[in-house]
């Protein structure tokens, strides 16, 4: 069994079989992170470059740990400390990195499509770690893995994705993935955060949190991107949290065994109440644990 592709750029182009292969493989990697010696020799001698043009704690650390637990050498480059500040273009940076013969380049960029451009220019595998408001495939894969682990399946589940849908690559990748795997997806948020024609991706659109989360199995809360407040997409944080913050009161509308997810970093009290984020329904930290296994699985499946 092999993933018959060079890059992982998005969930949109993955088949159900490919998603299942990645999730199954990742399940076998969980055990390694529970050992005293958290390392296997599988990718000895391989080089993985983390090329991050946007800030990141979770995703970058997760990829770095995944590479190291497989014995690959991981190199981190962040734009603020690289030649980017001297004016080097993305393509020049990539060609220079290619000349050092890495095996996989993991890339995050604020421009949608940036990893797609590089994938056509360089021979190494590229994993998209988030491109603009387009896709964040590894986040969606770890979300699907966590749902499958906790619920035993994805098919037939009701999932609500709440927040700034328009600017969220996490939402987009999850919509592609979850609908492919047979879940019923509802997206919810203020009209200013709802992209036009989003229903064409096969999701139900709601403008009220209460309506969206009624009887759902999973609530995915998205981070309100505080840096976007200047663009006047919502009047104030307080008003947003009045209408869309998931709290102990409105969560009772969902199923009793509802699971609450968040891709992080969370704004406590804005999109999610602290007692919900830390409460018994929350699987936010399970998502982070599974993220390492998903990234190990992708590094394993893309090399050799």
């Amino acid at each position, binding site marked *: 069994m*092999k993933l018959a592709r060079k890059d992982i750029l998005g969930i949109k182009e993955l088949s159900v079989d490919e998603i299942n292969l990645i999730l*199954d493989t990742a399940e*076998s990697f969980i*055990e*390694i992170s529970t050992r005293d*010696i958290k390392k296997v*020799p599988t990718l000895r*001698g*391989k080089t993985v470059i983390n090329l991050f043009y946007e800030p990141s704690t979770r995703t970058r650390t997760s990829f770095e740990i995944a590479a190291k637990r497989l014995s690959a050498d991981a190199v981190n480059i962040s734009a603020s400390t690289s030649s980017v500040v001297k004016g080097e273009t993305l393509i020049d940076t990539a060609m220079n990195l290619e000349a050092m013969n890495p095996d996989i380049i993991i890339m995050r960029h604020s421009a949608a499509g940036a990893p797609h451009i590089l994938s056509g220019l360089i021979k190494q595998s590229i994993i998209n770690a988030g491109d603009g408001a387009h896709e964040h495939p590894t986040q969606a894969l770890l979300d699907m893995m966590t749902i499958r682990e906790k619920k035993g399946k994805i098919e037939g589940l009701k999932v609500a994705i709440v927040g700034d849908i328009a600017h969220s690559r996490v939402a987009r990748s999850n919509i592609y993935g979850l609908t492919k795997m047979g879940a019923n997806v509802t997206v919810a948020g203020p009209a200013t955060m709802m992209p036009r024609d989003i229903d064409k991706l096969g999701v139900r659109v709601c403008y009220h949190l209460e309506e969206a989360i009624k009887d759902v199995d999973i609530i995915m809360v998205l981070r309100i991107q505080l840096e976007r407040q200047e663009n006047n997409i919502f009047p104030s944080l307080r008003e947003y949290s009045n209408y869309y913050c998931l709290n102990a009161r409105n969560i009772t509308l969902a199923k009793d065994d509802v699971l609450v997810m968040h891709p992080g970093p969370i704004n406590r009290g804005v999109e999610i109440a602290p007692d919900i984020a830390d409460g018994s329904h929350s699987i936010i930290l399970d998502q982070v644990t599974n993220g390492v296994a998903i990234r190990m699985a992708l590094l394993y499946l893309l090399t*050799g």
Partner: protein
Amino acid sequence: MKTGKVVLDADGIDRSITRIAYEILERNKGVEDLVLVGIRAGGVSLAEKLREKILRIEEADVPVGILDITLYRDDLLTTNRKPQLGKTDIPFSLNNKKVVLVDDVLFTGRTIRAAMDALIDFGRPKLIQLAVLIDRGHRELPIRADFVGKNLPSSLWEEVSVNLTEANERDEVVIEDE
């Protein structure tokens, strides 16, 4: 055309496993600190059968773990084929344990080399022994088994398959000419 020849039937396999169980107990002077680790996929059911035999003989239950050696293979980066990764499940410490590695067929020895590297990553066993149902020869590494069900000299183009079932009665070892 493939032609298959049964070289060991269900009764034969059962007798071999019984003898191996007695040999393991004899060599290790009982079950103290003894654990079995079956190598996925073929060694898992064999390890389970050995556990049952030992339970019957000694009235003591020895822990059984499952080891997937895929990530330790020496041909992962040279072959184009990615073997399906299975789960490793060793829910006990291996430190100072007498570990009996269990596999169905011993062939080149490369699987056992990988398995020993994997075991060492879990701790420092007191000793590692190897139990196999079939030893078909053609070693490529200096490895030998401590407990062997049947020595089966084979040619390289023959295929030896061990079919173990949970119910036992349809167990068989078949040698096929490719």
